[in-house]
């Protein structure tokens, strides 16, 4: 199975129809195991039970960035290789990425609540994620604003790549802005010295959420392909003269 074979939307549809149930099943099992392990994990001696939010927050935050990476790759596919599925992949990924980013924001602010006393603190990490969320929403607005998908694809691809180049700059600026105003960082994660009891459930959850993304992404791509077929069928129907 090479990329060239996958380029044919019909082959893509039949292949994903076979793969999707297995993927969905694996996702469900991994997430169930992950949630169980997370529930069983010991409380943190400082943060108490709130540390368990980490098991959802960290995978979502990681996917928030990963999905932009996927979209950047798809954007290259659109602009450089003109791969027929690339813009489908890019379009399908945007709302899913936005959803993961939103979950990362919500879990982040819930996690911060007991420590900060407020739901939102202009903490450097959270703020960067918020900007990422805004960029996802902007991208989705761009997709929605243009009716013709191939025209929207070009514009979205350029925006995605510019975003990918800009994201580190934004992250750096926000860090700088934040330390300028707040010398003492509010939230420090355990860092790499994470205990095994936390590490294993976290890894299981990370893999589970990643599989969830793959499943949702493939399903959304199928929907997008079908939506485009409906669109071209409708255009064909419109061009027929009444008998």
């Amino acid at each position, binding site marked *: 199975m090479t990329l060239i074979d996958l380029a044919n939307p019909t082959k893509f549809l039949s292949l994903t129809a076979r793969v999707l149930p297995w993927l969905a099943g694996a996702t469900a099992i991994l997430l169930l195991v992950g949630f169980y392990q997370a529930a069983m994990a010991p409380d943190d001696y400082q943060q108490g039970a709130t540390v368990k939010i980490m098991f959802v927050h960290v995978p979502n935050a990681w996917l928030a960035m990963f999905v932009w990476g996927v979209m950047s790759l798809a954007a290259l596919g659109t602009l450089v290789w003109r791969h027929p599925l690339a813009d489908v992949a890019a379009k399908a990924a945007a709302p899913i990425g936005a959803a993961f980013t939103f979950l990362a924001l919500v879990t982040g*602010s819930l996690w911060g609540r007991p420590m900060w006393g407020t739901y939102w603190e*202009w903490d450097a990490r959270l703020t960067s994620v918020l900007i990422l969320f805004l960029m996802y929403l*902007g991208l989705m607005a761009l997709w*929605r*604003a243009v009716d013709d998908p191939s025209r929207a694809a070009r514009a979205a691809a350029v925006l995605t790549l510019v975003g990918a180049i800009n994201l580190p700059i934004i992250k750096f600026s926000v860090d700088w802005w934040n330390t300028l105003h707040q010398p003492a960082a509010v939230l420090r994660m355990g860092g790499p010295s994470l205990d095994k009891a936390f590490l294993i459930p976290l890894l299981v959850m990370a893999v589970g959420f990643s599989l969830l993304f793959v499943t949702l992404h493939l399903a959304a791509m199928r929907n997008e392909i079908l939506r485009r077929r409906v669109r071209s069928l409708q255009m064909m129907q419109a061009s027929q003269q009444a008998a």
Partner: protein
Amino acid sequence: MTALAALIRRDIKIALRVGGGALIGVLFFLTVTVLMPFAIGPDLALLTRLGPAILWLGALLASLLMLDRLFTADHEDGSLDLIVMGRAPLELACAAKALAHWLAAGVPLIVATPALGLLLNLDAAATSAVALTLLVGTPALTFTGMIGAALAVTLHRGGLLLAVLVLPLSIPVLIFGVAASQAAISGPLSFGTPFSILCALSLVSLVVGPFAAAASLRHGLD
């Protein structure tokens, strides 16, 4: 009445479908609000104090930017000619268009306010005060902005000219909107006085806006 109901239904449908811009306004509102702390600094106490002002400015700019298309789209495709010729009085048709615009573009801003209040560290009481003043005040923004939108169509200029025309007109709404929110949060004024004036401003604009817009459309189309 069917004519006006049809006009309202059509405008809302267009705003919500693919290519319509109803939700872009909310996104703009969100972005402007998020930008403010980068200029002011992440000092929560300061943001709380400035919160109502930031939200009001964001909502003002968002509703203004969306007004640009209120008549332009209809002018470009020729619909406006037919609306002017129609049997429904042009004043009422303008009011219907503004109402549809407020429902599709203004109400989402108000719905988004609580989430943005969270970012600015406003408590529930303060957020609801801002949301309430926005609910009462944004119709005034739409209905006065409509005059600018109508002028922009007849002058064949949109965008910045519209902003320059309309922004001064919206100063009273801004003053009393922010004043009422601040009064509800910290005093010392009573909430009632500025809030009543805000209501009065909205009611006046509901009357003046459609007449002024219709007058400029009626004599400006060519």
